[in-house]
């Protein structure tokens, strides 16, 4: 090994391992959140349709 490598240096330490893990987790949570949003909106549409259908049936009946 070169002698230069064998020297103490002042270092700016990072924790990229934890950072990356957290970033990925955030991404996971964000993605799941988006999926939930799409699902919720769709269910809301289904519910609206059901209510509309029920009203129509009541009106016809």
């Amino acid at each position: 090994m070169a002698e230069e490598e064998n020297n103490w240096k002042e270092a700016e330490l990072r924790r990229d391992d934890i950072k990356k893990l957290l970033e990925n987790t955030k991404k996971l949570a964000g993605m799941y959140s988006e999926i939930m949003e799409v699902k919720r909106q769709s269910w809301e549409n289904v519910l609206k349709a059901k209510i509309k259908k029920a009203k129509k049936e009541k009106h016809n009946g």
Partner: protein
Amino acid sequence: MAEFSALLTAKAEWKPHQIAKAGDIASLAAAASALADTVKSTLSLASAGMEVVKLLATLQNINPLLIALEALADEVLKQIQDLKEAGYWYLYVDPYYEGNVSPTQKYNYGFEQLRNQAGDLIWSYKDGSGNWSDKTDTPTLAKINSDDAKPHLASPRKLIPGGYDSSNPLVDPLRSSDDGGVSKFPTFTTKEVIKEFTKAFDDEGDVPRYKLVGEVSAAPKAEEIVYDVDGNAYTGWNPKIDFGLELFDLGKASEDGSTVKNYVAGRKALNTKVAPGKPNILGNTEFVGGSGAIAIIIASGNFNEFIDVFNKFSQMFSDIPEFSSSTGKNLLDALTEIITPNDVTVKLTQVDTKFQSFIVGDVIGGQKYLSLGKIKEIVEGSVVPTTMVGRKAVGKTDDEGNIVSTMTDYNMNEVERWVDMEVVISPIRNLDGLNPWITGDMVVEMEERGTSGSTGDDVFPNYVVKGGDTTELPKELRIYPKVAIVAMEKLMILPESTPPDFGGIQIKDIVPGWGEFFQLLENFVLQLKGMISDSASFVQDMIDMIKQVEAFLEYMIKIIDEFLKFFQITLPSQGVYALYIPNQPDGNEGIKTQLSSATGIPDLGYAAGLLFVGTEGDKLIAGGGSKNPIDLLALVLGLLDDEEAPVNPAGNSTAEDAAAAVGKALAGTDKDAWKDKSTSEKMASLLF
């Protein structure tokens, strides 16, 4: 004194460490794994659900977002797996918190030498007529040896830390600590930390130890052949002896009538690790093979700066058990207490008002046990005359004229010259640390004579007994200090803290959030299983549940952002020194040599260190650049270059691709395609 003596038996020990396994990160890994299962179960449930609702939609109709989510979950799992495979030994050299090494004392105990008002040492010189006179000029060693000069010692003699040292009489122990003078803080230098690092490789007894699992009778008999983790055979087995490597019994050749083919699954562990020992390969600590190290030293010439950097460092590495503040006093508290010790309440008795009573601001010190502190408060209502009951003989003449002597009590403190009082004291460190207030010790008023330390916060007044330099003068010239006797130290109730408190973000704090998060998702899926129906109430319940999940996800993201804010900060380089020894072929001895010969670190007074050692394995780690996990550690700690280093050097971009796919799906064609789906198709997608 006590805090130093407690350290005399201390020793730094090697411990095993895995980034992803240490403490609470293990829970995090388990949680992420649960998420992957959840995601997968939502996919499998999709097909089951479609059967239930009798839909003809196929798997291709499943929301592409879920597939992207699964890909990302797999990416997280892979990352955790990489980190889990990276195991290290670590050695924490800790002079201050738990104290596993002994700080070197820079002072000797010696008789107190008088000082003038400026703090200069007073020397007595003999003139031609044999008379002695005092000067502050430092004599030559020759004059001291010929008895023409001598230190003017305090009278009566008092043994103090940093007193007169006959073996080295000319230098003042209170000279600047930059010049080697004493410090009130326990000093442990960078050189001493490096010495501890290298010393730890030499401990012959510090080897891995494995103990027998179960009863001796159930283990193979002595001298039977046993096997290591790789299946290599060994002789010399004895169930009563601890060995240095993990051993296995071959296990049964057949089970339930069929031959056991998977011997790895069929073998039986004979022992379990009870001590990790110093870095080793399969138990051999004297190995010649690939090993590497990362040494980190936190150091400063100023104790306050040292604490500041060390605190940040410990927060950043709170997955290392020694830096976790889950129990008891945390590291910052311990260090802060060195600088600002908690107040104590001391009951004083026989405070002699003839020499004046103590007041707030007085510095008092114990004569024998060298306690020292400043009076912060005199407890209200605590000042009462000291009860001093004497016994005396009183002669009484009876009716027959006989004098009868009887013993009676009398008040010795009738004029109330002596009083008791309770005082709240802010303790002051002496050169030998904080000393206790011992019952019966005489406490006297102290005054400043000179200072110790170097500059700034490191400079402390040197306190001596007030009038201590006048005890040899005629009575009328003597100065008498205020005086009392310690009755007892009272237990002090610690004050309530006022927010915000000093404290660190802890990796373990992430876990509760993670646990709840994944648990909720699991429950959500499980509930869906039993709720498949097309009733309006079911649909409403579904919407409500989704809203709850959305709210919780939002909360989770907020928490993660908080943690990210912390971990996105790099530790400032000032005061942090690192030495990276990449994988090298000479085993522990090679690391030791390189540690000893490395240069470039100043010898600063206050230091602590952390040494990671990794040994070369069979498998390539992470991106495949190295077989030694130490290289992965160097990468994630940012020691390899100045640029932001990726965790996965292989550059696997699955997660990024997945995220991009999600964005596209939501914003683009998939979203539009959604609108064109039939209600039944939507049902299938929406449920799962």
